[in-house]
């Protein structure tokens, strides 16, 4: 007999079914009359040591995590190292208070201070409480429990989750998150969506479900069902699972069925997206857009600021490639420090490399920051320029890269002229990457934002495939970094055309990996031939898919 259902807010879709792991709440309050272990200076030292241990743990975790969650952890490390807090602890220890009590009271003093500032600081109060509980746990000689790393999957249930809780988890083992507190924009919701883990928040009573109980969590509806009827589990899991099973089987580096390697890289727009890329098995980054650093500000970012943004990405792939695209600004997103004239037709205007050629100082700072960011990392840094049009552009950009001490310079091929005469660009470059989205826009003279012309954005169009083939024929390593690479069938065709790596949005990586693994290089080549022989996008797709029998087994 199934127990009653609990209801909360579904904030990250998907089905999770596993036994409950209950993450303990914060550390208990140390009694006011707790007896010190040693003399005042020993108690003080014990407390300060615990603060420092927690600070360095948070700092290390913050640096590994990166992004917004990493910022929170680094700020928490600063809290643990706060000189004012340390003074309060010392003062109390000197009065004969036990270390734990001194820590507790010092934290509570600052908690009251932040609490006064109102809702604006509510999240910081929670962060401070979390630091306090970790320091107390350290003093009690217990670690704040972290779910077992070796066992099977579990549904993590807690009153609420702190950033440090989620950052320290073995993410593969979490079937779902359920919290009693939190909201749709809270930390748990954000992390869960980022990791693709089903989550229900604001679910009253969830912490009363006994640990070990098997629960079914529906991250869409917000239903949490302890001990559900087996039919119900089967039904829920089947709908979510057919595809997932195929995807889980496809692990490791991208390769065709006959072992021809095709590195599968991620497109990212900020270091925040790293976690998702890593989770989906990206072997590197094939398109790191750097606009996030430059938008919405009066001055360009300093070299040091840029280094700090690039380094986590380079560090994340010790043996992989990281392909960085230098600033792609244009008339549609004007930057105060990169003035260009008013342009009636921004897509055809002074954008990308064209703008950087007018403002070489901005490019020079970015290239230097990239070179310095790569120092001391093992990643292979490739730098490419957007909107490269002809050999002169390619030569100019490559010369700037060499002057900045960068080993590998490339071009995004998105202007048809660059594809048509890729052989003229190639001698100056180390690699190229076809940006299929803009290449389609320019090839079909069709605004990519215009719904009425969406048909021309179909990357299956043989005209586009021809341009990819011409780019490949120039003889340099040629990747594809547009939406085309995220279509599993088209990914096979691109490999058949001779493309050497694919870069796509992280969430599509598993499906593309699975599609490639089911076809030989020869099958891909035949599919590419058939597609190019077809007159329309639709018939190209049909002809190619007829040569790719493995797609059907993926439910495609």
């Amino acid at each position, binding site marked *: 007999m199934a127990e009653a259902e609990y209801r909360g807010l579904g904030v990250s879709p998907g089905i999770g079914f596993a036994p409950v792991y209950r993450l303990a709440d914060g550390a208990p309050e140390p009694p006011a009359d707790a007896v010190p272990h040693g003399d005042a200076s020993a108690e003080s030292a014990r407390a300060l040591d615990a603060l420092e241990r927690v600070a360095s743990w948070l700092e290390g975790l913050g640096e590994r995590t990166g992004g917004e969650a990493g910022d929170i952890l680094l*700020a928490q490390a600063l809290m643990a190292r706060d*000189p004012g807090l340390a003074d309060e602890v010392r003062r109390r220890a000197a009065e004969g208070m036990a270390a734990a009590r001194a820590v507790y009271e010092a934290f509570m003093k*600052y908690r009251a201070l932040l609490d006064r500032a109102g809702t604006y600081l509510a999240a*910081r109060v929670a962060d401070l409480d979390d630091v306090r509980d970790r320091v107390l746990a350290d003093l009690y000689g217990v670690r704040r429990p972290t779910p077992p790393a070796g066992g099977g999957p579990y549904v993590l249930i807690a009153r609420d989750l702190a950033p440090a809780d989620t950052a320290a988890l073995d993410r593969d083992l979490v079937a779902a998150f359920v919290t009693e507190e939190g909201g749709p924009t809270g930390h748990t919701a954000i992390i869960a969506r980022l990791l693709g883990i089903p989550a229900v928040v604001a679910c009253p009573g969830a912490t009363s479900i006994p640990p070990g109980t098997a629960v079914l969590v529906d991250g869409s509806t917000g239903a949490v069902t302890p001990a559900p009827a087996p039919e119900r589990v089967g039904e829920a899991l089947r709908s979510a699972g057919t595809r997932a099973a195929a995807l889980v089987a496809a692990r490791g580096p991208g390769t065709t069925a006959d072992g021809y390697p095709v590195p599968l890289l991620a497109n990212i727009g900020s270091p925040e997206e790293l976690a998702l890329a890593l989770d989906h098995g990206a072997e590197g980054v094939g398109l790191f857009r750097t606009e996030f650093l430059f938008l919405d500000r*009066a001055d360009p970012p300093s070299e040091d600021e840029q280094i700090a943004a690039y380094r986590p990405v380079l560090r994340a792939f010790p043996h992989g490639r990281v392909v960085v695209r230098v600033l792609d600004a244009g008339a549609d997103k004007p930057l105060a420090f990169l003035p260009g004239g008013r342009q009636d037709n921004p897509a055809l205007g002074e954008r990308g490399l064209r703008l950087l050629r007018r403002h070489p100082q901005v490019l020079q700072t970015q290239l230097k920051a990239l070179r310095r960011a790569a120092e001391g990392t093992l990643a292979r840094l490739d730098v490419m320029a957007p909107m490269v049009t002809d050999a002169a552009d390619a030569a100019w950009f490559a010369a700037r890269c060499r002057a900045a001490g960068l080993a590998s310079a490339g071009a995004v091929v998105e202007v048809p002229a660059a594809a048509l005469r890729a052989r003229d660009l190639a001698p100056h470059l180390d690699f190229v990457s076809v940006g299929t989205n803009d290449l389609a826009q320019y090839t079909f003279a069709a605004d990519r934002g215009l719904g009425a012309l969406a048909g021309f954005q179909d990357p299956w169009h043989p005209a586009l495939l021809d341009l990819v083939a011409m780019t490949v024929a120039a003889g340099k390593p040629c990747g594809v970094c547009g939406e085309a690479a995220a279509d599993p069938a088209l990914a096979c065709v691109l490999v058949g055309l001779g493309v050497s790596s694919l870069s796509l949005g992280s969430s599509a990586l598993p499906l593309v990996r699975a599609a490639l693994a089911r076809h030989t290089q020869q099958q891909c080549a035949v599919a590419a031939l058939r597609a190019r022989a077809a007159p329309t996008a639709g018939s190209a797709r049909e002809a190619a898919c007829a040569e790719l029998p493995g797609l059907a087994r993926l439910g495609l």
Partner: protein
Amino acid sequence: MAERKVTVVSEVGLHARPAANFVRAAAKAEIPVTVGRVGEDVVSAKSILAVLGIDVRQGDEIVITADGEGAEDLLDELAAIASTP
């Protein structure tokens, strides 16, 4: 005693990342550094909890003071952080 008056322009005020950058830069210095809204009590700029506690919002004018060797350079750095959008 050197000081700088700056208007905080960051959308989040002197909280989140701006606050952390500010405190980290102040804490590097050997000399005392304070910060506060103009005309109000000042706190140590090296204490993240104190800086968060004075709850500086976007548009607030703050005064940063430092005394000792390197004060001018340090204040320039801190003023730049506080006036970064």
